């Protein structure tokens, strides 16, 4: 297969970026998208050029490090798939693809397709944990959690923090990420103690980082590699409303 790429190249955060055309030759349909880029980069290195920078780590869709826009869709056209798990058999010989970094005020482009997602870390630091000392680990069966709640908490906890939700949202909102991180706590007994402070602090931090608000279009859910549902956002809004009415802190 031969694939024509139009890739965003930007040397540093402050440098002026631009699109550069590349041709990926001899692409095997069994290659992952990132392996295809590895091949392009090998050639660039041989020619003494700067390889295309992109993030990746596990390459098996579980760490959340990889991610960029493939022709206007975060992580590319396959639902529930990170770009490291996207395979070239998905594309046709001779196709033209545009590769762009996530774009948001809160995600500065560091180099080419790599963006700074530390804003997510700061949202977690604002309250995505429990700080109360609960003593030693209780017996597994002593703290009862309903099946529905535990399933939903687990589904929310599946978020790998890749940033695709922000990238896909027309408002560059991190509502899906933030709400998943709030939900995994709000649904479980361990999350109850700081429940109200948590939602207010995390939403505050989300706003300070410069993310937008949710217009309920659900583009985030559609591109999310872990298919986190936007019912999490409804839960976050509910938690926030409750904090507004009942918080005594």
């Amino acid at each position, binding site marked *: 297969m031969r694939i024509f790429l139009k890739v965003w190249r930007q040397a540093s955060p402050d440098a002026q970026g631009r699109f550069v055309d590349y041709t990926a030759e001899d692409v095997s349909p069994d290659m992952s998208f990132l392996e295809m880029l590895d091949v392009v980069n090998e050639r660039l290195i041989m020619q003494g050029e700067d390889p295309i920078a992109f993030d990746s780590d596990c390459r098996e869709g579980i760490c959340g490090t990889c991610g960029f826009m493939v022709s*206007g869709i975060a992580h590319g056209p396959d639902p529930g798939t990170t770009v490291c798990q996207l395979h070239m058999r998905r594309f046709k010989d001779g196709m033209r693809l*545009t590769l762009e970094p996530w*774009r948001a005020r809160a995600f500065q482009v560091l180099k080419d397709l790599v963006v700074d997602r530390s804003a997510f870390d700061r949202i977690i630091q604002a309250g995505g944990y429990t700080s109360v000392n609960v003593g030693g680990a209780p017996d597994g069966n002593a703290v009862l959690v309903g099946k529905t709640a535990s399933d939903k908490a687990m589904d929310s906890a599946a978020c790998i923090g890749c940033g695709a939700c922000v990238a896909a949202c027309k408002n560059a909102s991190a509502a899906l990420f933030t709400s998943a991180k709030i939900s995994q706590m709000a649904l479980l007994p361990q999350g109850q103690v700081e429940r109200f402070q948590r939602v207010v602090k995390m*939403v505050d931090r989300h706003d300070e980082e*410069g993310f937008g608000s949710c217009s*309920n279009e*659900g583009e985030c*859910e559609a591109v999310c590699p872990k298919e986190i549902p936007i019912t999490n956002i409804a839960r*976050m809004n*509910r938690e926030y409303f409750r904090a507004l009415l009942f918080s005594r802190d």
Partner: protein
Amino acid sequence: MSSPIRRVLSSTVGTKLLIGLTGLALFVYLIIHLAGNALIFAGQDAFNVYAHALISNPLIIPLEIGLLLLFLVHIYKAITNYVKNLAARPEAYDKKAYAGHTSRKSVASSTMIVTGIIVAVFLIIHVKQFKFGSYYQTVADAGVRDLYRTEIEVFSNPFWVAFYVMATLLVGLHLRHGIASGFQSIGFDHPMYTRRLTMWSLVLAVIISGGLAAIPVWVYFTH
């Protein structure tokens, strides 16, 4: 925690709670407005009696002020929210595609600010034409306004008929995304009903905007 209500309501989530609550309240108002005005189909007397009962009710002034407030909060919040959201992505994508799959993005959801602003302009004209429009007495009862006649007068002009039909269809487009979106914003989440919300949003939008559009068309063709 230092969280005076005002600061909280200006957060992204607080803002959307307000837009959702006011939007849904306006939607409920619209249902009542449509039901009352559908009395035009029942004839001159029924319509005028209803209109008179409405404006002679002592509660009408506080209710009107409340309604105005709903509009002002909705419009103010929706516009500031829109501007802030634009700022959240200073650099646009060269290429951006519809994500497909479970996305609910639609023409309606992408044009909320446009349909909203056109509706606001329409409402000013609409209130001027009716509430503050030509005043006629009914023959039977000197203290009763013949609003029916005002309505027949306005809708004898094909320009106004077309204008009203267009405006009500835009209200429908606003509601097609708005109803489901409003419920989601205020935190509604049910294992079964949430999934049907988008469908109900469409059905209700069609009923409301179809019903509202039917009035000028009916008046034009029967008078």
